[in-house]
């Protein structure tokens, strides 16, 4: 989807200067492809809210001398990365620059689109209490459309089923209220509870799938744990191919938890480098270790990195501790620095950890040996084959929020059925549930409910 929009933002016609505005993530980089600063520096490296003189070039020819203002998300009118190009006011220049930007991948903005983006990004008067509820609806609707486009048919199918279930349920409740005098069969409480429970189950499943969807979107959390100096940071750097974490020979260099994302065969992993675990009197380091345990809690996969040259009974004991903390997670033992030991020693090492019955691989982070094995192990641990094209995954935070609220409402409905409260009160909670889900299933209108009743029951005294 093309997310960068551009338009001439000054009034139409010929003026002294004109302003062309681009908005959307990647706008600055896009302008970099056509803009030359005299000193050759890129806009990407410039500070937010700064102005730069230079030329706009189409191939080798100069189109115009311009001033460029750059704004970075969220501190711009739209709340996105924004570039404003002040060029000379001739229509030809305006049009040429606009065309050039479109060639480079921007899209012409629809009328009001900057405002709309500003609105959707929470830049406009949104603190005003009266607008908040509607904003949420709007954001999720926009997000809804995007999500629907992105996802395969399964998602909308699932929502359709949920919607039909709800419609049938609410019809039965309303039937008993508005048509109590009719000679039709009303659902008994058991039937109602059955239906409500089915709806609840469906909503709960979708809600749970959010965690999965979230993982897909944000990366599967992987904790890198191990003794100090086992080579965790080196491993992370090897995976990242850049020196992000601080690496040194001094034990306990990594005191802060560092997060990095890498993509392996298109699957995103979020690496959490942690401080090394060892017996220590250093207060700061102790705190770091505590934090490590907490981070392990948040991970789905734990890479327990072991210095092959120092494997001992001590490390076996520590591994035991970690294994206990990771019972509900995927634990992978990574023997590092295996370039420094013999094949025989490696074999013994493998045997030493036989009793843990977990996946073991050996690498050398520093020499970049067998890193592919580690990557394969990560992919296996991510258990991705479980997601089929037709599977429903909620990955949108707003959907998740709506579903969670709907879940609370439908649970109240079930409680109400158990307590045998009257349908008009049940209906209050059902409507709340429908309103929450309305943002993602499409609202269910009264006319639709009545239509459903008339099509299924013979009404008419």
């Amino acid at each position: 989807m093309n997310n960068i929009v551009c338009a001439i933002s000054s009034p139409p016609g010929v003026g002294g200067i004109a302003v062309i505005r681009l908005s959307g993530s990647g706008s600055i980089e896009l302008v970099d492809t056509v803009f030359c600063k005299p000193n050759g520096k890129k806009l990407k490296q410039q500070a937010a809210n700064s102005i730069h003189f230079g030329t706009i070039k189409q191939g080798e020819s100069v189109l115009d001398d311009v001033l460029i203002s750059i704004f970075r998300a969220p501190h711009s009118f739209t709340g996105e990365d924004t570039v404003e190009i002040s060029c000379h006011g001739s229509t030809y220049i305006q049009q040429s620059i606009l065309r050039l930007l479109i060639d480079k991948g921007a899209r012409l903005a629809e009328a009001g689109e900057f405002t709309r983006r500003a609105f959707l990004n929470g830049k406009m008067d949104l603190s005003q209490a009266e607008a908040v509820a509607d904003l949420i609806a709007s954001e999720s609707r926009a997000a809804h459309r995007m999500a629907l486009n992105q996802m395969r048919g399964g998602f909308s199918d699932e929502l359709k089923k949920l919607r039909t279930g709800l419609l049938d349920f609410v019809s039965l409740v309303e039937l008993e209220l508005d048509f109590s005098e009719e000679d039709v069969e009303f659902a008994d409480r058991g039937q109602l509870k059955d239906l409500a429970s089915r709806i609840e189950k469906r909503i709960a499943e979708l809600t749970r799938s959010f965690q999965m969807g979230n993982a897909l979107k944000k990366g599967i959390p992987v904790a890198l744990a191990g003794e100090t100096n086992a080579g965790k940071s080196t491993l992370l750097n090897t995976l990242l191919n850049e020196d992000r974490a601080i690496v040194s020979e001094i034990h306990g260099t990594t005191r802060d938890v560092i997060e990095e994302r890498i993509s392996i065969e298109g699957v995103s992993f979020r690496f959490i480098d942690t401080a090394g675990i060892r017996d220590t009197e250093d207060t700061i380091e102790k705190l770091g270790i505590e934090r490590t345990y907490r981070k392990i809690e948040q991970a789905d996969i734990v890479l327990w990195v072991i210095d092959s040259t120092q494997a001992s009974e001590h490390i076996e004991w520590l591994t035991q501790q970690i294994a206990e903390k990771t019972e509900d997670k995927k634990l992978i033992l990574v023997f590092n620095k295996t370039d420094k030991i013999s094949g025989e020693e490696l074999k013994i090492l493998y045997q030493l950890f036989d009793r843990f019955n977990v996946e073991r691989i050996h690498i050398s982070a520093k020499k970049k040996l067998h890193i592919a094995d580690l990557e394969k192990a990560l992919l296996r641990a991510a258990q991705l084959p479980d997601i089929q094209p037709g599977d429903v995954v909620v990955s949108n935070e707003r959907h998740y929020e709506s579903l969670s609220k709907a879940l609370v409402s439908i649970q109240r409905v079930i409680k109400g059925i158990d307590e045998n409260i009257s349908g008009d009160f049940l209906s209050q909670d059902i409507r709340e549930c429908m309103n929450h889900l309305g943002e993602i299933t499409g609202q269910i209108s009264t006319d639709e409910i009545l239509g459903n009743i008339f099509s299924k029951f013979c009404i008419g005294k």
Partner: protein
Amino acid sequence: MDFNYDVIVVGGGHAGCEAACAAANMGSRTLLITMDMNKIGQMSCNPAVGGIAKGQIVREIDALGGYMGIVADRSAIQFRMLNRSKGPAMWSPRSQNDRHRFIEEWTRIVSNTPRLSIWQDTVARLIVRDNAIVGLSTLLGVEFRAKAVVLTTGTFLGGLMHFGATQLSGGRVSEPASFGITEQLKSLGFVAGRMKTGTPCRIDGRSIDFSKTAEQQGDNDFHKFSFLPNIRRELPQSSCWITYTNERTHEELRKGLSDSPLYNGQITSIGPRYCPSIETKIVTFSEKTSHQLFLEPEGVDSQEYYLNGFSSSLPFPVQLAALKTIPGLEQVQLYRPGYAIEYDFFDPTQLKPNLETKLLKNLFFAGQINGTTGYEEAGGQGLLAGINAHINCHGGKEFVLRRDEAYIGVLVDDLVSKGVDEPYRMFTSRAEYRLTLRQDDADVRLTPKADALGLAASDRVSALNKKLLEQGELVTFLRNFSVKPVHINPFLRSCGSSDLKHGCRLSDLLLRPQFGLADLAEALPVLKERIEQIPFLREEIVESAEVLLKYSGYLEREKLVAEKLNRLESIPLRGRLDYATIKSLSTEARQKLQKVDPETVGQASRIPGISPSDINVLLVLLGR
């Protein structure tokens, strides 16, 4: 003879009578034009008023100073509070009425209302100057001038009745239809359509074997429609009788289907899905082997019975053959067969929320002309149209009810925002704030508004004030009075409720579902005494206090939702945006907004096809 009026109301049915009385009572010199002044307030279909959601509307009409409740109480020959086993939002009053008495009561009211005159004639043409209505002329060639005109034409505009293959022009049996107005309005740019409704046969009660039917009696408690203390039921009460169709009935009906105007293409317009003819029932729900029917008495001195559930436009011989298979009707003697009727209506999105047409100033529509059905729906609209017609003549802020204020508000807002695709009937499920729109407190919601308009007589206002005072004192008493376990536990046990361990305020005790205030009073002499001190409308006051306390949690929650949503209602929209130029709206939204031209953002949000993101675009453009 006066030929100049403030307000002229065309049509003397349920909408027209309310409109005429409201305008006159507010001070307008008013003329009611009816084709037959012996049929003022005629019940064209069943001899019954109220029912679920409709009964609430009657209470609202009464609370606003209208007359339907008073007429219905005085002419009632059976009264029931429906849905008593459900929550208080669902309690719905309904009456069977003496058809002649109903007309007499209305006639008495209409002919004794100051400033209100009646002219018996048919309107042929509206007189229009500068996009405003200024008067009308009649078939008798009389011309009347008016500052405002309310059209309540019922089924009379282009009315066409179907008895099998026999088609008769008319608005009701033996009453002529009216022509000209539809054509004139269409030429002025109005969009008109056709709707269909039907009515069952009328039976001579002497031919019914009631022993083969089941009796349904009315309630005989304090409930009634009118909030006025001196209005009560005056007639002897009677029963309705229940019988059923069977396979043989259906067989007879099926034999006649090829001659059914509904199925042979003779009738093409839309009928109400919730009120299908008997032939529609057996076709649509062919698996059902039996349908319930009600024999409803038409009056104290009449032998006429209305066969509820058997509306039909099949040829008379088919109807008769089918009727004879029904238990109790083997020897049936008919007064007349059922029939279907088609009539003109105007798409109500052509109206503003005050029921004035957008195209012609000072022209108002109310009732079936707007695509609704039902006496109650008509009455509610008539009342509003009469009030606003008066306001148009004499100045003041237009009178509109919100969706959280009245079913009438829901009704009008639905009509002008959504339009209709079948005859519109009220259901409680149409209301977002069902718990707020209860029948027991319609006076609390609406009588102060009627008072402000000058429509509430002093006895109505003082009845409300006394009720509020007494109710408030009773609620305070219940909130402050604590009961000791020893005094109440035997009672709780007898109701299957759990024992108290500590003292408990009566208001908290009342939250328990197993008993009500009256039961509690039987167990607690102090409470009983306290209740007996209420000098006035005792049962009503006890009931409304109980509702307030028992369901306070739900009521509070609904109020919060309403307050949140009402913010959109306060943002005016009409005339502020040129929808055609707003590219960020969907094409459908642009078209719908142009067509309906909503008054507020809240109204816009209810138009089908307008999405929440469209609303947000509007809010952005309005600088919100």
